[in-house]
């Protein structure tokens, strides 16, 4: 797509989807690119303008595609490269941009590079990975997958050395001290950019480079790799975007924006659990505190916000006390816990409470950043904690109440994953078809929300100013851009609340509620009194008339 506006990602509403889980056009039980292309009209109608695709490359699928065995083509299960191109073109025709995954840090152990590398110590690709005679190097490095891995080193019986891996042992880390690796990865990115992809989500970026005596995260050398890739991309493909997956504290994350010359966007990981925490505590404090700790970022950069995604609701960026609280409140059943997180979808996390689902989506769309909707959350899909790993949140999209939920014509037992069948979240109860029929369904409501968000550039590009009313159950903030000011007021409580807002700065302005366009009283000298129902939120446009 033509890059008419280099900052398009600030106005984006992103839809995260797994090709395998979305729509099966071939009848083999797996979603595919042709199927995804067929559902683009649905996404256009939903209102999203950007799609983020999870990995679709050839892979043994031991980590849901994040273990890539070939970076330059499409997993045959999902179709062909031509299918991808056709999908990309169809998306662009609808004004929808496409973000694809790029797993820079590691490959699958089935990748030919690793097979060559391990074949002998003298192989030319030996140095493409990180090898060692001992498993004692980089001692200061934490384990990420605590539930499955005992060490960041794995023994290779073929070449009789240890290799370094930050994630699963079947995902050896690439060696970014090797210039050949860096050139090769850029070449792969170029391959996809030339095809027309609009952006990359770069997976696991803090771990690219290792240095003794450090925790091997966020190292300056890692930033150099990113800067180099960004510079090349800007030079050859202006208007494209890099999105960082770096599960770090805001202060550490800040570095990934550089001087506006590293990532264009980064996920705000610490905010997400605090939104859930604030909701359960009925207290805005966790949200405002983390946002106050969030440093300013360069003008051309943007945070990426999400409620749920394909991974567990990560609790790495919270204190022990907060983690215990989150577990007790959101994952009472220990089967819901995985690594340092909670493997659940949005609707079950919120007890399928429509008011809370709306409020959380309202926050997602009004806090500073670009929102991401995880596929199925727009209709309130459930999860299946009985499936291993994070598969429970990656079940097939529920399109209708008929055969296989409309996902696939295949026999149910051949589907890549069991469908949701329970009476609350099963496809008979929750599906796109039934929700399209009603103006007040969650799907219809989400469409309205997205429409308002997209029509309000200040929400994507504006600054934020918190109001701190005395009632701590109410989270209120201005979003400002130029002469436009939006006031968002959110009741985090399960009970009705009254709140007095100090709006004297806008004395004389009229509040216009943005969903119904109703007029609220003019701001006067006294504190502005609002009452909000349980979990209710308002967005107001402030107008001087």
């Amino acid at each position: 797509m033509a890059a008419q506006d280099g900052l398009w990602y600030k106005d984006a509403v992103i839809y995260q989807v797994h090709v395998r889980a979305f729509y099966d056009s071939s009848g083999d039980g797996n979603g595919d690119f042709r199927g995804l292309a067929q559902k683009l009209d649905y996404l256009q109608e939903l209102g999203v303008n950007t799609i983020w695709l999870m990995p679709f490359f050839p892979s043994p699928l031991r980590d849901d595609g994040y273990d890539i065995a070939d970076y330059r083509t499409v997993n045959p299960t999902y179709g062909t490269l031509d299918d991808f191109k056709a999908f990309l073109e169809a998306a662009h025709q609808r004004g929808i941009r496409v973000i694809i995954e790029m797993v820079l840090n590691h490959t699958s152990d089935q990748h030919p590079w690793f097979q060559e590398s391990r074949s002998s110590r003298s192989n030319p690709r030996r140095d493409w990975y990180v090898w060692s005679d001992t498993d004692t190097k980089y001692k200061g490095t934490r384990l990420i997958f605590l539930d499955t891995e005992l060490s960041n080193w794995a023994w290779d019986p073929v070449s009789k050395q240890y290799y370094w891996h930050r994630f699963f042992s079947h995902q050896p880390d690439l060696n970014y001290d090797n210039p050949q690796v860096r050139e090769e990865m850029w070449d792969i990115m170029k391959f996809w950019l030339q095809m027309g992809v609009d952006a990359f989500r770069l997976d696991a970026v803090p771990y690219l480079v290792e240095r003794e005596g450090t925790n091997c995260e966020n190292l300056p050398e890692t930033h150099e790799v990113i800067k180099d890739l960004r510079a090349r991309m800007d030079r050859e493909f202006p208007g494209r975007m890099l999105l960082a997956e770096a599960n770090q504290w805001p202060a550490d994350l800040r570095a990934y924006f550089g001087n506006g010359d590293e990532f264009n966007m980064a996920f705000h990981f610490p905010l997400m659990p605090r939104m859930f925490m604030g909701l359960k505590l009925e207290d805005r404090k966790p949200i405002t505190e983390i946002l106050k700790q969030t440093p300013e970022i360069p003008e051309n950069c943007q945070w990426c916000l999400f409620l749920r995604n394909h991974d567990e609701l990560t609790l790495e960026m919270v204190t022990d006390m907060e983690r215990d609280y989150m577990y007790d409140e959101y994952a009472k059943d220990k089967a819901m816990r995985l690594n340092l997180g909670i493997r659940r979808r949005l609707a079950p996390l919120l007890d399928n409470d429509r008011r809370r689902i709306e409020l959380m989506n309202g926050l997602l769309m009004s806090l500073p950043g670009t929102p991401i909707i995880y596929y199925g959350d727009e209709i309130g899909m459930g999860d299946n904690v009985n499936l291993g790993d994070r598969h429970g949140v990656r079940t097939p999209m529920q399109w209708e109440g008929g055969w296989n939920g409309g996902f696939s014509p295949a026999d149910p037992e051949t589907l890549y994953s069991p469908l949701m069948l329970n009476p609350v979240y099963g496809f008979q109860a929750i599906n796109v078809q039934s929700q399209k029929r009603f103006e007040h369904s969650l799907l219809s409501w989400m469409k309205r929300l997205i429409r308002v968000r997209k029509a309000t550039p200040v929400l994507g590009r504006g600054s934020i100013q918190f109001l701190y009313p005395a009632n701590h159950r109410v989270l209120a903030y201005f979003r400002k851009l130029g002469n436009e000011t939006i006031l968002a007021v959110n009741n985090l409580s399960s009970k009705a609340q009254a709140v007095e807002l100090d709006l004297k700065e806008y004395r004389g302005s009229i509040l216009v509620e943005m969903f119904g366009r109703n007029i609220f009283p003019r701001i006067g000298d006294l504190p502005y009194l609002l009452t909000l129902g349980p979990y209710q939120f308002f967005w107001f446009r402030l107008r001087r008339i």
Partner: protein
Amino acid sequence: MPDESILSDGFVRELMTVGDVDIVVGVPTYNDARSVGQVVQAVRAGLLKHFPRERSVIINADGGSRDGTQDLVRAAAISDLSVASDVHALRTLHSISTQYEGGPANGIAIHTILAATDLLQARTCAIVSPESTTLEPEWMERLLRPVLRDGNDLVLPIYRRPKFDGLLIRNLVFPMANVLYGCSVREPYPSDFAFSGELGSQFLGQDIWNQEQGRRGTELWMTLWAALGKRKLVQSFLGAKTRREDAPSDLVAAMRETAGTLFTSLDAYTSVWHSTPEAIETPCIGCEPAISDGPSRLNRKRLYDMFTFGVKELDPVFLSILTTPTHDELKRLAGVPEEKFSFSGELWARTVYEFAIAFHKAVIGRDHIVQALVPLFRGRAHTFLTQNRDASVEEMDRNLESLCKAFEQEKPHLIDLWDGGK
């Protein structure tokens, strides 16, 4: 119906921002700037440590301080606007303050806190003294957990007190409450205690808040009301309790609060003490020896002098209060030299009971009656100090038992006088 009219509009607005809570910690104050900051910081630390997930609020009901007391309480708040970097809390902790009308009076402060607790639908409320400089964060756990976890209605403290602290409790309140009501709690007139939200609402609904016991001695009234109402009481060992060095010591006021409340209670609970009251069960959580060694700060010679002076000066008053034998006995005692002076438990019990009768009959102004007991109490205190100067904890407990027996022995005398005998 709870009386919420004592809450000012401004305070109601503050309560509105607090919203419903699990825990209220009430702090009645009046010019307590020298210690209240330390107390509320310890309260806050206790809430953060032991109840990090509960919705809590510190409520200060102030009698009109002009020394910055209220600001010190408000400074304990934790919010997203103002929070010390070394404090990590899951949620907001409000710490609010209000000045009540008609003060200073602890009863009005408690009334205010009760009304706020009721409005906020708190599950439990602890009240702590602004002078409790030995208050540790663990006190919050020891006061509140028995309500929140175990479903108790009223949690009364047990302190480790210096040997000669709390003389009025040991010589008057404890034996009288024990013998007349079967209530043997160590601190029936607590300064740090907790109760359930439900019991708080019941306190609030009683018709005492326009009476004297709704102004002073309210804590003692609450203990007796809960105990005699068969509410679930428990005692919880808190730790050492010492008075602030500069704390004002007003024996007349203390006598009004204790004796005045006890004497008033005789009218409310006549049928209870006329019979043999059932012993009220008050288990103790974490109890340890409750007395620590330490020198007396009291001047025995002065106590003796004030007793003899009082007996002489107040003779006309005593004539209208006491029976002739008791009056004569006290006059005789006032003539005994200090080294041989001994105000026996029996005489003290009889004296107290006769004062109670006089109070009941209002033979003279009730406040005068209570004030007139003060010099006599000083005489009793002199004997207590003499008796227990070298006593071990066990010996002190035995002496207390003896005193209770004396109150028991003299009880028929009280009944007899109450019922009209002379």
